[in-house]
């Protein structure tokens, strides 16, 4: 064999080893660590209108919920040591234009002051889950809070950056509807994915957003509302993503890869054979 041929064999072999080696090595990487329980809400892509104001729409029952544990708010004053809502099931859909998010949670009584909220980080800056409170070494951003209260019968679209800074926005783009039955609240929030308002979270299919939840049990105990203001059930930050439309071009690239690899084999063998003959 001349040098050219030897070089070809070497190249072929290296590529082959690369393919096989890479497959083995990469395939044996451990999967990313997941906490117990859900870490993300998936907004499933549907066709047609999203169930924007129907907590009992049939489509909700076809969706696997994410479930997040909640804690009594003991992070800053005024604290509360015991809360009614211990966990929340979250489902979501979108149709490329609008999204709807359903929160389902147990609360034994239906009260005028019952309330629920969804919080998002806005833009590129990270924000602390407790109302975007000031961080000391990191410059934080705003949070966008969607707040629903039974007696209001609607959602309020709000902004906060730190405690006591929470305020309703000028542009209200969120709607919400709640339905209570047999000790369970089902509250659906909806909004266009994109609003063009810098104070709002913008949801782009395929991209991850940070989301958190809060709940208040508005039951009257001894003449006072049981949970209000900072006395509530809270979650940490979790992830949310609107499912991207399926991308079939991937399969094109897979076929291309297979064809190229097969062609490479064919020419490699032919080359070596010719080399051996001469």
């Amino acid at each position, binding site marked *: 064999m001349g040098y050219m041929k*030897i070089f070809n064999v070497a190249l072929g072999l290296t590529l082959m080893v690369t393919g096989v080696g890479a497959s083995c090595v990469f395939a044996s990487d451990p999967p990313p660590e997941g906490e117990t329980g859900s870490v993300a809400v998936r907004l499933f892509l549907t066709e047609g209108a999203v169930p924007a104001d129907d907590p009992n729409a049939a489509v909700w029952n076809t969706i696997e919920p994410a479930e997040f*544990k909640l*804690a009594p708010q003991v992070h800053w004053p005024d604290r509360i*040591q015991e809360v009614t809502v211990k966990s929340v099931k979250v489902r979501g859909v979108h149709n490329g234009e609008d999204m709807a998010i359903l929160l389902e949670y147990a609360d034994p009584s239906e009260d005028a002051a019952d309330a629920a909220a969804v919080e998002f980080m806005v833009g590129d800056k990270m924000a602390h*889950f407790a109302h975007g409170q000031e961080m000391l070494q990191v410059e934080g951003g705003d949070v966008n809070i969607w707040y629903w209260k039974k007696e209001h019968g609607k959602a309020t679209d709000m902004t906060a950056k730190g405690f006591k800074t929470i305020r309703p926005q000028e542009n209200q783009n969120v709607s919400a509807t709640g339905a209570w039955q047999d000790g369970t609240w089902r509250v659906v929030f909806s909004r266009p994915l994109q609003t063009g308002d810098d104070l709002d979270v913008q949801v782009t299919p395929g991209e991850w957003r940070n989301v958190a939840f809060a709940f208040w049990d508005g039951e009257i105990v001894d003449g006072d509302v049981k949970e209000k203001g900072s006395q509530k059930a809270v979650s940490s930050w979790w992830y949310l993503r609107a499912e991207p439309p399926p991308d079939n071009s991937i399969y094109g690239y897979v076929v291309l890869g297979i064809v190229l*690899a097969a062609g490479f084999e064919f020419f490699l063998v032919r080359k070596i054979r010719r080399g051996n003959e001469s």
Partner: protein
Amino acid sequence: MKGPLAKTAILLVGMYVFLKFILPLFTAPLPASLIFLYLALTFASAMIFYTMSGGSLDEFMGPVGRFLTGSGQVGIAGTARILVFVLFPLLVGWQTYTRLAPSDMPPAENRTIHPAPPGEFVGLANPYPRTPENIMMGKGLYAAFCSPCHGANFDGKGPAAVGFNPPPANFSDPGTIAQLQESYLFWRIKKGGVGLPVEAMPWKSAMPRWEVELPDEWIWKIIMGEYDGAGQSPRTWEEEE
């Protein structure tokens, strides 16, 4: 199996086992891409070494050429050759797919649990003596302010702990406060989660910024009570050297 190529193959397998399984016993596991790079380098070195020390490349690669062209092959060798030819394109296809397929997993999070403290908190000593009264007072304050998250038993399992990610630290675990100096705890308790640097993801931490609620004296005494209650002792400067 005496050819130079076979020897190289054995060397590669040995190298892989070492990098993948033996080395992690002593240090952090290597990323797959690095393992692969080392194997590729090993292969290249073997090839160069063999040709430099008088062997011909022809001899080194000969078995491969014969295998690929299928000259004089019958039985198992022939079948293996066909198998390789079919599997290689499929592997390439599969690799392409796994690279391009959209991931359903949220971004990986590598939170640094014990980042470096700001300079002004390095080397501070607890100004209060370890008397039974001070420890007692610290434990009382701990029960009032810290136990809802960190647990009455110092195990991170307080009634509020379950909703938080990252979870409240478990002080009875030798991996937390036993690794730290009192000055480090003083920083963490005073400034809380929001005092962490970016690599520790301050936006996720539920640890309160206690300086807005508790005087320094209480914090130092809580630290005493915390170590005592958890059955740990702080890391000292001597151990640090």
